[in-house]
């Protein structure tokens, strides 16, 4: 894959590492969660067949994390966007 880093431009996939589902926030106060709720945060992630908002890190270059919407059936990246922004497409 060729991945468009928001800072460095399009680069080969080998320069990046994958961070799984995007937009999963750390709970405000983990201590109030049940074990089941905490397990949801720790271990449960979406795994869609189709478009997936996910995280990547340009580890071999600028070390910045960013998000991408990618189709898991075709590997086509529909959009990349910065951490903290919401997905421009769904």
């Amino acid at each position, binding site marked *: 894959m060729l991945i468009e880093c928001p800072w460095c431009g399009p680069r080969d996939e080998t320069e990046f590492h994958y961070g799984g589902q995007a937009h999963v*926030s750390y709970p405000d106060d983990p201590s109030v969660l049940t074990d089941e709720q905490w397990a949801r945060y720790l271990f449960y992630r979406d795994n869609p067949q189709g478009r997936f908002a996910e995280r990547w890190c340009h580890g071999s270059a600028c070390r910045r994390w960013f998000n991408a919407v990618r189709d898991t059936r075709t*590997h086509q990246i529909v959009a990349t966007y910065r951490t903290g922004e919401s997905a421009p497409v769904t």
Partner: protein
Amino acid sequence: MDNEFRLANAGRIDRDRPIPFVFDGTEYLGYAGDTLASALLANGVHQVSRGVHSCRPRGILASGVTEPCALVQVEEPFDEPTLAATTVEVCAGLRARGLSGKGALTSRPDPARYDTMYAHADVLVVGGGPTGLLAALTAARAGARVMLLDDQSELGGDLLAETAPLEGRPPIAWVSGVCAELAGCQDVTVLPRTTAFGYYDDNYVVACERRTDHLGTAAPERTSRQRMWCIRARAVVLATGAHERSVAFSDNDRPGVMLAAAARTYLHRYGVLPGRRVVVFTTNDGAYQAAIDLAGAGVPVTALADARPEVPDDLAKACAAADIEVLAGHVVAGTRGDARISGACLAELRDGRLQGHREVDCDTVLVSGGWNPAVHLFSQAGGGLRYDSQLAAFVPARARQRVFVGGAARGAVTLADCLADGARIGAQASRTVGLSADAAPMPAVLQRTPTPSTALWLVPDPSGDYRRHYVDLARDATVADIVRATDAGLRSVEHVKRYTTVGTGHEQGKTSGVLATGVVATILGVDPAELGTTTFRPPYTPVTFAALAGTDRGALHDPVRVTALHDWHVAAGAMFENVGQWKRPWYYPRPGEDMAAAVWRECVAARRSVAMMDASTLGKIDVQGRDAAEFLDRVYTTMMSTLRVGRIRYGLMCRADGMVFDDGTVIRLADNHFLLTTTTGNAAAVLDWLEEWLQTEWPHLRVYLTSVTEHWSTVALVGPRSRTVLRRLAGDLALDNASFPFMAWRDATLAGTTARVCRISFSGELAFEINVPWRHAQRIWTELCDAGADLGITPYGTETMHVLRAEKGYPIIGQDTDGTVTPQDLGLDWAVSKKKRDFIGKRSFSRPDTARGDRKHLVGLLPVDPDLLLPEGCQLVADAELPAPPVPMLGHVTSSYRSPALGRTFALALVEAGRHRVGRRIHAVVDDRPVPVIVTDPVFYDKEGARRDG
């Protein structure tokens, strides 16, 4: 007689460069420009190999990468298994033998070099035939960066075997003109002998260039034998042509059966006659020209059987003029002969039945069952296919990447259509990358409208015996095998492929795949469109392991990371240990010492006098920013914000699941400035981990992380006399306990070099870690050596470090822990803050399983026999007698050493409810025998820390 089938003047071989070669032990003569197949045919060698199961003689069916049976093992200049004779260029020193399906690997080390080249193109054109040439020319004229790849030794594709004039000239003259123009363009790269074999995501096309094989024994040593081209293209033009296929008829595997277009290639490109007396069998217009050309070369063509009930008028007339009898509605029903065809049986095909059998003598049957567009790369790129019933073939339907297919690869049949495609898609491709492009003008060419071919897959057999109707010559699979598969209940072509192995040979079904689909469709009475093809997967043609491995071999397989002191360690005779990518000194044996003796000596020096270690591989991260302390509180289990400037604290990091991830020290340099150390192997992972939290969870925190791992070289100076040595270099730096206490740091000038000195200890002894920039490391190290020489200062390696720390019960993350150990399991509750509201991992500690009191704890073990060194990794059980398996296990030994300080062996272990067993006897299973050990506290040496604080 040499080259008895070679024509005197035809072909593109270089008659001035004869090349002797050996096949199956006999020497023959070929010429530069020959393939092994053309040279063998020229010398009248038609049988090349035998069937993998049937052991029937097999010849040469095709002329390029589709060859299913003429497999050879090349033995000289260097062994290579399983090559098609049609793809091996005759070269100096070539020796080969025929193969019956299986190649051989030899243990001779391959001396050749292999490399990789990354390339970028606006327009990548795959295939240098008429379509590809015109596409490349169009793109080049538009100013595109163009790459043109072709798998043959020279460009031209089918034009190399074409005689009809192009622009009133021989086609090859037109090819030369285009090539010359391309060669003159600055940003055009033309690569012959280069096969694009993989089409990956985002127009990433991978090709293998064969650079030296054709030079044989004269190949230059320094040039890579094969080069992997990894090409990222903005647009791709696929002009990959089409593959002629055979028809399943009885005994269609004998030497002498050849694809019609291959015969034309042998005739025109290599000047070789495929035989002396020919019968042609076709389902389409394509084979007529082969018949006419052979007749023109003086070869009698006994008959041309066209399975179509009506034959095109113009072709029939041309055949008549060449004295070729055309039999409409006829097929070849079978062949006879042994090592070579001696005759064929012709019959009329009417309403699916054969009648009027007629035997004719011939030594060659040319067959054309239609053409399969070479859609392999298109399909790999995610493109969809559809079945074209006019062509009886699968053709490209919808593309998923920016790819344009033209010429025979999309089903074009005539040269005029191929050229028109090339110009059109060359311009399209250029325009998609933002260039204004005009299609290059079409060369004038004879126009002819083809007649549709007929879909004939299988010639029916009156007796119903299909055991010699071959579908896949590479796998010796027949129509009878396919019938057996469908009779067993299989309907999917994927199942049939797996049941019969059709299409799994070295040519991956290029001649057999679509034919098998057609045969299954015929048997089941369905349309081939319903069945589809099996999936096309990389590589398009076989690629050597070595080409894919490239230069990542031997010393370059993975980077060797070294410290600034590496040369010193080498000169000192150190043995090295791989720690991740680092080479670390393991121990420094003196002459006559084994590892145990060296480590014993190094340990004694550290405990009794002074020793030093290169600790530069520790990861180091500079942390700055006004929220730095807050950030560290969140990522360490330990409280860091209360650390005073000038002081150092041990820190432990967990993953969110509560399992220990890394440990190290934290130095507070200023209010908003810290320096962290990490374990050697985890340095990159820790930095990534911290950045991940900072950037994705807490972007509002003002914190900046910078790796300074290599900037600082670190020397650990250890032992009761370390202060003495340091004092000799430290000038007026106060080193007494009050001025420079344990877990403090000071900036200093040591022997004229600016250094940061940390008073920390991973050995339990009085110790200092001296940090200097990389370029000063050698000097400070040798200064320390000199300053401590009279005290017997001793360099030590990682093994001694491990012994010293284990005597103190300090765990090594990754050795005494795996990914299932919590800080509490390690007995490091003191490093887990109770005051902080939250930190990464905290919530997980209270999960039911994580909070159990009887988890595995890190404890010490003392074997009852003080000389017994427990193997690391041995398992622990309760009793002296082993019950029948499965035996309940209590844990395992994580570290085990001989201790000079203790005068005996000892170990660390993770033991179920270990802290509750201290003082009790359990058993370690050594060589399947339980031996008694006593569970102890993990701190074996100087429990009070008096030496460390000394």
